């Protein structure tokens, strides 16, 4: 029976889809059978990020409306035979699916994989509610920005109200240099506000943009540090206990010099 994990955030553009694609791929690389589900009906992008757009025939709404069988709608990933995508419909909207239908669909998926990862739409309306309805676990993605943290806090409250236990947190797009200079909220600041367990930190990395545009995911690149951070999160999902290290980068010469004068470092 699969474990169902929903990736959500409240605010848009913080990296839900990128995280879903990377974690799905990483889990598949660990030998798990994974289905990633795009629950953002009407605004699908998980297929684009995975580079599977041109293979879509049927989608999630087709399955729910009975236009096709579930297995017909599952698209096998081009890199990894253990990873499947259930794409969202692009021509419908969020009202095309009800919470009960979503729970039923998720239950069908459970017998097909080890992990089902659902990419939630932004917002707190029906699309979000559908995405968490069938989830066993919830992972919240946020960036170190006040607005994203505020929305994450709201989402945590809603998840708790929906009886979804203790969500875990991915902090995305951290810039260690800005944190050091006090221009960006630190991991500690975020955890103090949100008061939930951290499952991983991802640095701000331009390679994410180029990879996304090419329909590749970073975990496939063995030299990518960011890919390795995603792989660590995937291992933590499978139950391995891996220490969460602070994101390293090399402080610039100026920073080191000023640090020396202040008697630090």
């Amino acid at each position, binding site marked *: 029976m699969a474990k169902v994990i929903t990736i959500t955030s409240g605010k848009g553009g913080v990296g839900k889809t990128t995280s879903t694609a990377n974690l799905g791929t990483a889990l598949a690389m660990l030998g798990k059978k994974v289905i990633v589900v795009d629950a953002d009906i009407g605004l699908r992008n998980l297929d684009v990020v995975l580079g599977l757009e041109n293979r879509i025939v049927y989608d999630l709404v087709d399955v729910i409306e009975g236009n096709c069988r579930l297995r017909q709608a599952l698209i096998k990933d081009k890199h990894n035979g253990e990873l499947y995508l259930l794409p969202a419909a692009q021509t419908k909207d969020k009202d095309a699916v009800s919470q009960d239908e979503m729970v039923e669909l998720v239950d069908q998926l459970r017998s097909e994989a080890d992990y089902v990862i659902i990419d939630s739409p932004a917002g707190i309306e029906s699309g979000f509610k559908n995405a968490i309805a069938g989830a066993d676990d919830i992972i919240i993605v946020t960036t170190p920005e006040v607005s994203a943290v*505020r929305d994450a806090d709201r989402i*945590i409250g*809603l998840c708790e109200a929906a009886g979804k236990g203790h969500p875990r947190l991915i902090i995305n797009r951290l810039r260690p240099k800005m944190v050091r200079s006090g221009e960006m909220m630190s991991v500690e600041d975020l955890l103090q*506000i949100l008061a939930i367990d951290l499952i991983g930190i991802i640095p701000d990395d331009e390679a994410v943009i180029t990879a996304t545009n090419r329909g590749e995911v970073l975990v496939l690149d063995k030299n990518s540090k960011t890919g390795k951070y995603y792989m660590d999160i995937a291992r933590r999902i499978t139950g391995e206990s891996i220490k969460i290290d602070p994101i390293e980068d090399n402080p610039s010469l100026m920073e080191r010099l000023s640090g020396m004068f202040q008697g630090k470092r």
Partner: protein
Amino acid sequence: MTEYITIKGARGGLRLHILDTCEWTDAFVALQKQLTDGAALLQGMKLSLDLGHRELSPQALDELHNVMRNYQTDPVDILSESRTVRAEARTMGFIAKPPMPKSTTVEVEQTSTVMTRNVRSGQIVRHHGDVLLLGDVNAGAEVIASGSVMVFGRVRGVIHAGAMGDRSAVICAIELSATQLRIADLRARAPEDQGQKIPEIACIEDTHIAVHAWHEYRR
């Protein structure tokens, strides 16, 4: 001064008992004032009006119905000993019941409550009485109480103490970085610069809300 309105916490809401031995006009004016003063607290709560033994004309009930509809979107229960008042109230869309026998109702005056939780963005805690919260009140969250609010944690949201008009209510917290503080009918905004992170207490002094360090506060 005659207390026309007594407020009691009932299970899951509030019961407003309206004195039934005075002139209706006096009681009605007092009720409207109470609703205005306590709007922040009352609007989110299930209310019932206990009219006791008072007989009310259909016109007076209709007036009451209009007033309640303006203050409250939820239907209000009418409790009355009088069968005619109950029947008339039902035709207007009130839910009308005889007041429950005293022995079976769990009625309390203002009570204190202790909560162990974080109040997160978008969540509102309402309570008739004092609130003692072990946890944080995050930005975008609200705590509204008719009494004082004490927070063993950080406050970054909005706190409204004395929400029924009690100007002696206070707000205190281990870290008081609230976006806005309200006590009774007054409000205060946090200064733009990050305040000192020490335990503080806010109370009304004359015509404004003052915030003091905990150890400097003398009553």
